[in-house]
């Protein structure tokens, strides 16, 4: 019925000499209209918290009725990630303090919150082209986003302070 309507419109407008813009035609073919493809990035913690508030638990049998099995799987994955121990306050605090470090972009902050690196190589992995961006002493060019090694160390200390590892893991490591 909609197809008949479209052909009718085309015929009518053709006779009237109006050319229908393709975007208008497409509206009828699309199943849904995407208002905003990206309405905001979510940290792993926010998705974890959202699923938890919907009633998901680590036990797959307990999830029946409140969330679907696929949501339960996502919850299971996030329970094993650093998001399990984060709180809204700690994430907000980290994002606020990380603003002092001018060299990292918001995507890199997201990377750090999701993976909470505890050693320097892990922090290197989260920052894009880290080794290229470290200020070299020979080059005296002043750039806004240059970073220094001790700034990286500060950032690592900040991560360790705000997102502490659980006590059992630390015991295992010392053994």
């Amino acid at each position, binding site marked *: *019925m909609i197809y008949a309507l479209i052909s009718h419109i085309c015929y009518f407008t053709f006779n009237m000499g109006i050319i229908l813009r393709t975007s208008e035609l497409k509206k009828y073919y699309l*199943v*849904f*209209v*995407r*208002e*905003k*493809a*990206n*309405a*905001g*990035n*979510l*940290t*792993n913690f*926010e*998705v974890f918290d*959202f*699923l938890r508030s*919907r009633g998901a638990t680590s036990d797959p049998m307990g999830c029946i009725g409140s*969330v*679907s099995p*696929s*949501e339960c*799987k*996502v919850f*299971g*994955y996030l329970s094993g*990630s650093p998001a399990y121990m984060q709180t809204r306050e700690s994430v907000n605090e980290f994002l606020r303090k990380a603003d002092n470090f001018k060299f990292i972009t918001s*995507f890199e902050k*997201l*990377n750090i919150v*999701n*993976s909470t*690196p505890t*050693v320097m*190589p*892990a*922090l*290197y*992995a*989260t920052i*894009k082209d*880290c*080794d290229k961006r470290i200020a070299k002493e020979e080059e005296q060019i002043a750039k806004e986003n240059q970073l220094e090694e001790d700034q990286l160390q500060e950032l690592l200390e900040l991560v360790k302070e705000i997102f502490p590892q659980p006590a059992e893991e630390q015991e295992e490591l010392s053994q």
Partner: protein
Amino acid sequence: MFYLSQVEQNLKMPPHLLKPSLLDGELEKGIRGELEKRFLDKVITNLGLCISVYDIQSFEGGFIFPGDDGCATYKVRCRLVMFQPFVGEVIVGKIESCDEFGLQVSLGFFSDIRIPERFMVQPCHRGEDGIWVWQFKVDNEEFQYSLDIDEEIRFRVASVKYPPTPVEQSENSEPFSPMEITGYINGDGLGLVSWW
């Protein structure tokens, strides 16, 4: 890894789903169920895998159009939680299998993550039992680190591809994956979590 996507959808609510919701005054619950049926666990090209319906912002309408089997059509505006890692994101997953082309990593809810050989730590080779091994040389000493199955691996996303749906598929071919993520592990801090 996750982001919100706002969509507007003309949703057809069949009468058998409407009746209990309207009587209880829980139309939103019925609409949510219908939205989940339509979007949950489905891959939308260039948007990602839909994990969950975040919230329903508004719905209006409820008209019954002729010839529609009595379905009431609502125009629903909602937000969906989509899974689509951005290029350059660092993710921890589990090695599911390995073949001559590379590794396959799984996240539990998503398994189509491949790390081809050219993106793996160099130099590495495939052992007799099929497991990839990294040969690490430092000061004339050589260490062998193997990438075993079921080990946690940290990788960086190189690309997210949406191959077009095949029109014909032969019987023996691999099942079609609508969303493929390629990762690489040749970098500082990447590779098995236990290495660093």
